[in-house]
């Protein structure tokens, strides 16, 4: 067994660069393989994503969660000039918040690839390569601390997802993928102008031309930028809209059901598991710390939208006949709860939100995965085409029930801890919000239990289901680690909470300082 510290030395001081670009290296290797060499493609995919996961674990070990404030980024900071003429740097670092999402990303990408090997996927080479490039984009967005670098990675995510939905998607894939791209691009282009303006403000007020968050956040949050109310509001919305589209918050959510339904299973897992979280991550990393005043001013508005989203998402989910669409709308509801937690502005709620980001990634990822297992065999996602298949596919059923209960928020599984902390925190901030949000959870229990009942329990009426085979080895290998984490993080969420505590407290403190002038 290699000692972890020596392996880190072998990777060099620049462990974050390795982390971010290792998947792309794998994609590059795939370029030289024939599309027919399925086993070689699988090996490269597994090796690249597996090694990336290992590197992320190494980063986790190397990270010191005890350091508070902006200093948390220092130990692993990568800082090189990139476009020095305009103060743009290759600046990357992690704190607890980004790190937990980094690990979630590397794990889910690995599992998605493992899962895809159990399914019949045409043009496998391109599929694996797209996910690897996507992983670079996601990891880069999470570790980038220079706003332009962040924007670059943010847009890099767009292209592979465009192909994943557009090539491997369902019948209406072209409509879905264009909608996804245009919605996301509309948000991110606004953010782009916001970034440019913010750098101009920073240069004018401090005399330093930089895009570094490490310099922006202290200057912006302490009022050095001396923005007028309108300027701060415009800047806040330029950033927040980009992230709220990605989350997606009602009424910006309409691209999500389309994208989810048309995306291949792997695409849905990554979309729900990571891409949506990048929206909430962006709020915590950019929109709130940079513009706490505006964030405070618009908290009531965003909270109302989030509450509508919680109830609306759950309500619409309950009316769905398509399993994937149901899970997609449940995401709208769950992520709205996360946004509510983030804007509740206390440590309890924000910690809960971060925990729920991880939890939702696991449980919803699992639900999409298991729906994908059924779809692969029957080529339908209509609930009416199933029923009573529990005896046919006992393993799938068991896994589904655990994932479903995790999503519902059953105590002992990870969904419960996150939701409980969010509600407890929101209750402190505003009782009415908490009451409305809680109804969303009840609705969530209704539609998810109904889904399980319609699909798995009862008499088996559909003849075509009699030949249904259970989950295969690759698919199970992908689902099992997620199930384990759903249970472990439900019983023992403390490690995650410890990891993110300092990041959460930093954000909350910055927000609180400006809220009380």
């Amino acid at each position, binding site marked *: 067994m290699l000692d972890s510290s020596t392996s880190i030395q072998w990777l060099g001081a620049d462990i974050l660069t390795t982390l971010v670009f290792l998947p792309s290296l794998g994609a590059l290797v795939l370029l030289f393989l024939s599309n027919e060499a399925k086993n070689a493609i699988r090996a490269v995919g597994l090796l690249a994503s597996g090694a990336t996961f290992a590197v992320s674990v190494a980063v986790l070990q190397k990270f010191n969660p005890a350091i508070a404030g902006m200093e948390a980024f220092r130990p692993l900071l990568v800082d090189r000039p990139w476009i020095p003429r305009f103060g743009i740097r290759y600046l990357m670092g992690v704190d607890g918040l980004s790190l937990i999402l980094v690990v979630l990303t590397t794990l889910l990408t690995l599992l998605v690839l493992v899962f895809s090997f159990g399914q019949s996927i045409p043009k496998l080479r391109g599929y694996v390569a797209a996910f690897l490039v996507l992983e670079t984009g996601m990891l880069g967005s999470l570790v980038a601390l220079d706003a332009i670098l962040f924007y670059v990675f943010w847009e*890099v995510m767009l292209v592979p997802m465009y192909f994943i939905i557009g090539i491997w998607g369902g019948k209406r894939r072209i409509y879905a993928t264009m909608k996804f*791209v245009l919605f996301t691009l509309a948000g991110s282009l606004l953010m782009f102008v916001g970034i440019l303006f913010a750098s101009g403000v920073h240069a004018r007020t401090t005399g330093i031309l930089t895009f570094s968050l490490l310099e922006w956040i202290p200057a912006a949050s302490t009022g050095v930028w001396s923005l007028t109310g309108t300027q701060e509001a415009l800047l806040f919305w330029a950033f927040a809209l980009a992230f709220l589209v990605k989350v997606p918050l009602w009424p910006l959510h309409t691209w999500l059901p389309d994208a989810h339904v048309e995306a291949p299973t792997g695409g849905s897992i990554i979309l729900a598991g990571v891409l949506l979280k990048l929206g909430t991550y962006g709020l915590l990393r950019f929109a709130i710390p940079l513009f706490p005043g505006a964030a405070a001013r618009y908290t009531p508005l965003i909270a109302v939208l989030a509450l509508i989203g919680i109830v609306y998402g759950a309500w619409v989910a309950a009316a769905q006949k398509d399993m994937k669409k149901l899970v997609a709308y449940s995401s709208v509801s769950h992520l709205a709860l996360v946004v509510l937690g983030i804007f509740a502005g206390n440590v309890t709620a924000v910690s809960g939100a971060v925990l729920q980001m991880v939890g939702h990634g696991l449980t919803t990822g699992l639900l999409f995965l298991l729906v994908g297992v059924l779809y692969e065999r029957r080529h339908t996602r209509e609930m009416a085409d199933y029923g009573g298949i529990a005896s046919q596919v006992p393993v799938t059923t068991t896994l589904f029930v655990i994932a479903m209960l995790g999503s519902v928020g059953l105590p002992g599984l990870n969904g419960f801890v996150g939701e409980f902390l969010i509600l407890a925190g929101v209750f402190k901030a505003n009782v009415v919000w908490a009451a409305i949000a809680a109804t969303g959870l009840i609705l969530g229990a209704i539609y998810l239990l109904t889904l399980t009942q319609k699909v798995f329990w009862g008499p088996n009426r559909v003849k075509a289901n009699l030949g249904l085979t259970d989950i295969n080895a690759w698919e199970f290998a992908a689902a099992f680690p997620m199930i384990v984490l759903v249970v472990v993080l439900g019983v023992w969420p403390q490690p995650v909470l410890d990891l993110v505590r300092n990041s959460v407290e930093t954000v909350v403190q910055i927000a609180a300082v400006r809220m009380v002038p």
Partner: protein
Amino acid sequence: MTGFLHVSPADLATVGPETFLCVLGIALILLDAFARSLRPAFPYLTLAGVAAANFLGGYAPGSAFAGAIEGSELTRFVDLLALAAVALVTLGADALLSRDKRNQGEFYALLLWSAAGLMLMVKGNDLLVVFIGLELMSIALYVLAAWYRDVPEATEAGMKYFLMGAFASTFFLYGLATVYGRLGSTRLTTLKGALAGGEGFSDPMLQIGLLAILSALAFKIALVPFHAWAPDVYQGMTTPAVAFLSTAPKAAAVVVAVKVLATLAPAGLGEPWRPLLSILAILSILFGNVVALAQRDLKRMLAYSGIAQMGYVAIGLATFDGPAFEGILVFLAGYLATNVAAFLAVAALSNGEKEPHPLADLAGMGRQRPFAATVLTLAMFSLTGLPPTVGFIGKLLVFRAAVDAGLFTLALVGIFGSLVSAGYYLRVVYYLWMKEPSREVDAPQEDVLSGAAYILVTVAILVLGVLPRPLLDMARAAVQSLPR
């Protein structure tokens, strides 16, 4: 000391590349007439000539021909763009031209002359020299437009471009005459000195003159409302030749506009000019992008996309400061690599010059011709401005300069245009990779030369997108050499 007959070796060295290119063009025509069997070697001769001209161009910047011509970092930058465009087009065109037996020496000769003309135009420190360069560049392009002279669309393109181009040239001459009438000189440095003292720039006669000159340049750049020629010419002109027409000449015209404005208005743009350029930018971006959305012919779509792209350049012109000029140069270099890539790939994925280039012909090409399809895909992403391509770097610099100068409207129109453009650029990607072919397409096969062109443009788009520093340094040096 005065007069054109006193020509020193240093003078000749300054226009060395242009002279060499012109002579090479004549040599190619003669070879074609007397040694027809050498035709397959013409692309190689052209490439060697480009390399030699590049070597000659590295020599001695400075004033020559008694100040009528001036070499600088800026002209060197444009030299490189022009030579790169000629080289890439030569590499990419041979497969198509050989197939159609259209690989006469004149094609390469015209390319070389056009490049010589635009290089001379940028070096001109005298508006008359600028005009001579402009005409040399344009006349060669008029002929190239009608290269497939038995194809009606090509003849139409040639005639249209010639008639409208000649009209634009008269505008330039009119403006030149007006400026001369008011200030008694056509020499830019003399004009600058004359303007420094008096009321200068705000004089109505000068303003009319400058307006006429800028209109002629806007015609070459194809900014709305001077764009009407572009779609028809793009559609009828030989595709590899469009790759040249749409990049290097436009870049040269933009640089001349920058140079003239920076010389005559060193303190910044005055009242009528910034709003005027802003309107050109906004109209070009909105009109170009929205109309491109409705196109079903690839080349027409790229024509409108070109109008919109030059609208982004016009944002830089309206911003009018050092960083904006750097942004313009970087944008133009990136646009050159990207658009040449796009047109070469279009040529390689279509039935040929005698038939239209419908978007639908691209269906299924991702599988049939992955190499060319990848190049076209990258070009589309770069034109959209998505990182990590060079198209993103250009937009970053131009928009940054505009935001820094407080021109938010222009920046917002720019990003709105980018969003709209994603609609039609990604439609190309959709056809390439996500749609099954509806009919057979008899496209010219790649040869070694076009393979080299693909690799070069791919490297340029990606490497300059990730590591743009060398390009930025060159652009900065070029802008610093502008007369202040």
